[in-house]
């Protein structure tokens, strides 16, 4: 029961937060579209947040006790960067990264 309650609360919190980002401009910001602070955050916040999330979750995916610390996640991560700069196809880049990480995790390749 507690678990169902948690999932319900989780979905409500996530839905509320997501909807808030979409509705706030229509409720509060319509008189401030040209405010320089909004422009500043609008330009730089999304990129900084994406890099932050990539950094934190990349670190968590990696095994830092390997003889090449973190290589099991850093190599797939670099593959994503390479493939994405090369082809610019988001789904292809994600597929290559995920598949190569699954290989490093399931074969124990790099583990020593």
């Amino acid at each position, binding site marked *: 029961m507690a678990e169902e309650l948690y*999932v319900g609360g*989780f*979905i409500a*919190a*996530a839905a*509320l*937060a*997501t*909807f808030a*980002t*979409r*509705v*706030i*401009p*229509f409720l509060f*910001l*319509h008189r401030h*579209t040209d405010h*320089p602070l*909004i422009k*500043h*955050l*609008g*330009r*730089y*916040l*999304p*990129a*900084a*947040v*994406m*890099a*932050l*999330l*990539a*950094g*934190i*979750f*990349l*670190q968590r*995916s990696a095994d830092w006790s390997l003889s090449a610390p973190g290589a099991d*996640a850093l190599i*797939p*991560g670099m593959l*994503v*960067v390479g493939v*994405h*700069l090369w082809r610019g196809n*988001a*789904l292809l*880049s*994600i597929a290559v*990264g*995920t598949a190569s*990480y*699954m*290989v*490093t*995790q*399931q074969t124990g390749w790099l583990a020593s």
Partner: protein
Amino acid sequence: MNRTVFPLTLPVLFGYLPLGTAFGVLFSTQLEYAWWIAPLMGIVIYAGAGQILAVSLLAAHAGLLEVFVAMFVLNARHLFYGLSLLGRFRGARWRKPYLIFGLTDETYSLLTSRARSEDREHEQEIDFRITAFNQCYWVIGCTIGALLGKNVAFDSTGIEFALVSLFIVLTIDQLKALGEGFPIWIGAGAAAIAVWLIPPSHQLIGAIAIVSSVLLAQYARTRETGIERGSEHG
């Protein structure tokens, strides 16, 4: 009317089915919950990267405040989409709440890039149907993925890296659109500091606080020295 709307949404169909499926597979291989929770999330949350992040937050049993803050900042870019659509949705009455709810990256780019006639009511009805079609693709993808993950036996160890890959891809896309690298360094630096100094359960909020403070401080400084950059910069 649907015959004119459907072709418009085809690119989104090809994007949302596989990404929704990826979310669904991730959901049902990483978590022990009933499969239908995945499409339910597609219906009430409806955010690609947000839902994929949610799988990892659910697995970690994150606190609800952390969930709210993390989802809010991850989707914060939507704050700036709405600003450019204020006029277009004016007078949309009962359609308006759903038009706003369904304002994902892909729907935004469709709505802002298509040709429009003078007939406001008609155009808002088309906007409404585009939004609804797109969400249907997303929910169908979530469903297929959740059922696949539940019923097809395969070793899914490591599949959670889809999240990291997605964030790397989004970072590169942001960098390309922006033409400036420093926000990436602020984000990466904040992540490094958080991982180094803060226990895992609070790293996300900590890093978000660091990024926000740095951007605010930078804003205050550029205002002070009067070297505000023009909006056409980059």
